């Protein structure tokens, strides 16, 4: 339990997807123009992470390295991305069928998530963390840990994108030098946010 809590808090603040490992930057920069849509995307990312990371965890431990004498881990890239693309397609169809209003709200973002590096990155980090020592606070040793990790990193991503969107909304009233307008200043703002998040780096529970 203690380990799960520590893993959760760490994956939100210390190993934040955006600020510590730059994952999901493309959609992070493209969709963070207003708070409402970025919140929708954040929820969608949490949801897809929650489904794909545990599935990939089971595949990694039971199939790729689970069969005695056969090491299939070189297939992990293809398998992970196929699972992610398939799940995203499936989620899209289910949401469309049962909740048209949510589908309309998420619409364009859902298919985009298949190529969001944060989703693939979470699966690859999960694969790395399985091999860490059990004492490490980043260790993932069970399906429960995998779910907690997915929830934490998704939540961290949501936090980051909503924060940036709020700043960018305010920034529209600011007189920014011309070459910096748009992308340039956004990068610098994200850099400053990352610096602020660095103060969490010693955090222990």
């Amino acid at each position, binding site marked *: 339990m203690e380990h799960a809590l520590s893993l959760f808090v760490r994956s939100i603040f210390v190993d934040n997807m955006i600020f510590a490992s730059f994952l999901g*930057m493309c959609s992070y920069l493209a969709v963070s123009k207003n708070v409402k849509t970025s919140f929708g995307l954040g929820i969608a990312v949490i949801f897809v992470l929650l489904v794909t990371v545990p599935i990939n965890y089971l595949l990694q431990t039971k199939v790729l390295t689970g069969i005695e004498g056969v090491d299939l881990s070189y297939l992990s*890239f293809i398998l992970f991305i196929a699972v992610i693309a*398939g799940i995203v397609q499936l989620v899209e169809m289910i949401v469309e069928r049962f909740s048209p209003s949510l589908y309309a709200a998420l619409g364009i973002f859902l298919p985009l998530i298949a190529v*969001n590096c944060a989703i693939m990155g979470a699966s690859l980090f999960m694969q*790395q963390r399985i091999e860490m020592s059990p004492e490490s606070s980043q260790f993932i040793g069970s399906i429960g840990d995998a779910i907690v990790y997915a929830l934490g990193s998704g939540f961290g991503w949501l936090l980051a994108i909503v924060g940036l969107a709020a700043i960018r909304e305010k920034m529209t009233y600011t007189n920014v030098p011309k*070459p910096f307008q748009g992308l340039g200043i956004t*990068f610098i703002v994200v*850099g400053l946010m990352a610096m602020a998040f660095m103060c969490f780096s010693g955090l222990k529970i």
Partner: protein
Amino acid sequence: MSKLLSKENKGVFLAPLNIDNPIAVQVLGICSALAVTAQLEPAIVMGFSVTVIVAMANVIISLIRKTIPNRIRIIIQLVVVAALVTIVSMVLKAFAYDVSVQLSVYVGLIITNCILMGRLEAFAMSNGPWPSLLDGIGNGLGYAYILVIVGAVRELFGSGTLLGIRIIPNVAYECGYENNGMMTMPAMALILLGCFIATLRYLNRDKERK
């Protein structure tokens, strides 16, 4: 030969290096651009790998573009790219193990690098193999050179070396010069890239207006 290097194809190759740069203008593939540039060597390896993969994937997809059903094209593209990335990752592990450890998950993340999907969707799906190859190499190099510049600046000021060779002499340290530890931090990569993009846009301001 003259047809192969026509003016159009030249434009396809050169535009991504400058006015249509994948990182600075199209804002694609930022994730890995930031994460691997703390030192010069991984930045070069990463840039090179991405160039090879974009070029190969572009050619393969443009060869089979007429047989791909439209509804499942994303999955097919992803599988082609994933297979190529697996090969590159194995080659890196065999011939440059240290760098591949440093790059860790970011080699696998080339799969979801938006440059790849962007180029496959926007170019390879509607053009022949030869222009696709040029477009792939051009975009790969446009990505690589920004990585190399950011990597060089961060390594030079962050640890005073380039490719592990000491550039800033010891005399400077004796006179009180200190490495800027901030440069090796992730946050600085973002700020540097922001300034770099602004510079590029300032230099290209006339072309952009057209």
